[in-house]
């Protein structure tokens, strides 16, 4: 007789298996058909890289890609820096008055629906735009940095909380100034957390659709907004190729993230 496993629940494994299939089948379809020689999503015509070549040569795609990467880089760097400071404030400075408020503001982008933020920024930035005539990338950079802050904040704070505060007091015992202690003790130990925050922020910025769609100025497409625009025009498997490429990049970053935050045995 099979040993009784208290943790086994009938049917649960089947549902779980189906769930994984459900999660991956559509994505797999997109990836597989991005290599289709035929411009179809249901008939396979042989292996081909033509859509990748077309996407690569598409000027609008090139511009959008560069813009996406620039925004993601700047936003992730800025938001991680700001989030590090904020994490230090909320973890290392005790229960100061207003700490809950700080939590609230920092986590605000996580709870407010993006459409609401998008509309709010549309109004405010639109007003600034008409009155200053500035049409540059600044609006997007500001908006992206803002909503990336909580994503960078969470892993950094988690890491900070598990760090031993006595290490820093040891440093000051050895006559290190607070600045030196920070640079030589805290920061290196915080490294994995900061790296994780950077990667999460980067992926979040790269993927954003709604806020970018509402904030962008004329002709400032990012990859996701370009794709959204394509849904209105004739869809070609070029979109599949681009989607697969973005997926590959996300996969690389996520793997790095998981490897950095893996708990050491």
């Amino acid at each position: 007789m099979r040993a009784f496993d208290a943790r086994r629940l009938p049917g649960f494994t089947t549902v779980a298996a189906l769930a994984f299939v459900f999660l991956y089948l559509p994505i797999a379809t997109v990836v597989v058909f991005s290599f289709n020689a035929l411009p179809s999503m249901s008939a396979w015509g042989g292996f081909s890289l033509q859509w990748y070549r077309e996407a690569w040569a598409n000027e609008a795609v090139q511009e959008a890609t560069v813009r996406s990467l620039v925004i993601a880089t700047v936003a992730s760097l800025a938001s991680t820096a700001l989030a590090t400071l904020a994490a230090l404030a909320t973890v290392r400075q005790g229960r100061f008055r207003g700490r809950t408020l700080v939590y609230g503001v920092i986590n605000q982008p996580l709870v407010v629906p993006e459409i609401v933020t998008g509309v709010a920024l549309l109004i405010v930035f639109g007003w600034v735009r008409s009155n200053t005539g500035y049409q540059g990338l600044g609006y997007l950079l500001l908006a992206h940095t803002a909503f990336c802050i909580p994503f960078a904040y969470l892993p950094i704070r988690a890491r900070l909380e598990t760090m031993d505060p006595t290490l820093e007091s040891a440093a000051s015992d050895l006559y290190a100034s607070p600045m030196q202690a920070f640079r030589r003790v805290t920061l290196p130990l915080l490294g994995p957390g900061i790296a994780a925050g950077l990667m999460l922020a980067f992926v979040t910025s790269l993927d954003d659709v709604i806020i970018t769609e509402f904030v962008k100025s004329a002709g400032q497409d990012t990859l996701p907004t370009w794709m959204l625009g394509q849904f209105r025009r004739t869809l070609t498997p070029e979109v599949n190729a681009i989607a697969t490429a973005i997926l590959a990049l996300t996969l690389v970053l996520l793997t790095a993230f998981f490897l950095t935050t893996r708990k050491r045995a």
Partner: protein
Amino acid sequence: MLKTLTALAALLATGATAQERQLQLYNWGDYTSPDLIAKFEAETGIDVTLTDYDSNDTALAKVQAGGHGFDLVVPSANYVPIWRELGLIQELDLSRLPNHANIAPEWRDVDWDPGRLFTVPWQWGSTGVAVNTSAYSGDINTSDIFLSPPPELVGKINVVPEMNDIISLAIFNVGGEPCTEDLDVLRQVRDLLMAAKPSWLSMDYDSEAKLSANDIMAAATWNGPSMRARLNNPPVRFGYPQEGFPLWMDSVALLSDARNVDEAYEFLDFIMAPENAALISNYARYANGITGSEQYMDEVMRDAPEIVIPEELRGAGVFLPTCPASAVDLYSRIWTELQGS
């Protein structure tokens, strides 16, 4: 490090790559030939960025909100007076447009822009119904196709979200006059549209892809997408509603707060050359308003039923006039009710 930051700051401040001539074109989606843009960019070195919209109202709302950053916009004829009244487009300096003489005589002195001082022709066409004749074999020259759909088509119809065209088709369907403010007629129009909406599958700008992929079997749409769908999917035919159907022309206008005015003038002149106007037509499959472009157009365009209106239906075509604000207000309210349901 400091130098990189300063360079980055400069980049942000100008919002453009250095020393590049730019043009921001705001046009209907799927309406601008990539070949045209490529040719223009090659000849002038101006970098053209295209942003698209799906209806006249969307474009008007966006530009009115301010801070849009576009240079050229392509409104329909009956909206041009609204744009002028709001001061959103500026009068053109004809001395900078030598090709202005190419405008076809019948499109030169139009009610909504006499002498073409504000706009330059882009394309013109008609709004009707596109039907996949393998799904429905009855008469397609009627707006009943989407207003009182036959059973075979119920649940398989797309309607473009262009208020003016659809409301006009509905008004004609109940026997009203264009720009009518007759409340009885409008009540019928409202009831007709609301009753028909459940049989529509979608209200989306893009009919061509849906018709080509057999996602839908009929659409209330323009002749251009219908022809493009037919070239992908032969059974699709365009029907001219005998109850009355809108004729329209879209023209390019220069926005009052355009920032790349010189580049805009070059583009405006460029599209009035016959061979370039033909490029526009060949892509979107509409006729244009420039003399001499026929010789450059594709063979398929010449006798296409979507371009050449059949004799017996020609009288049903009505070039939509600009309705007074009170009428537009009524139509907007019906439209909002329709869209929001």
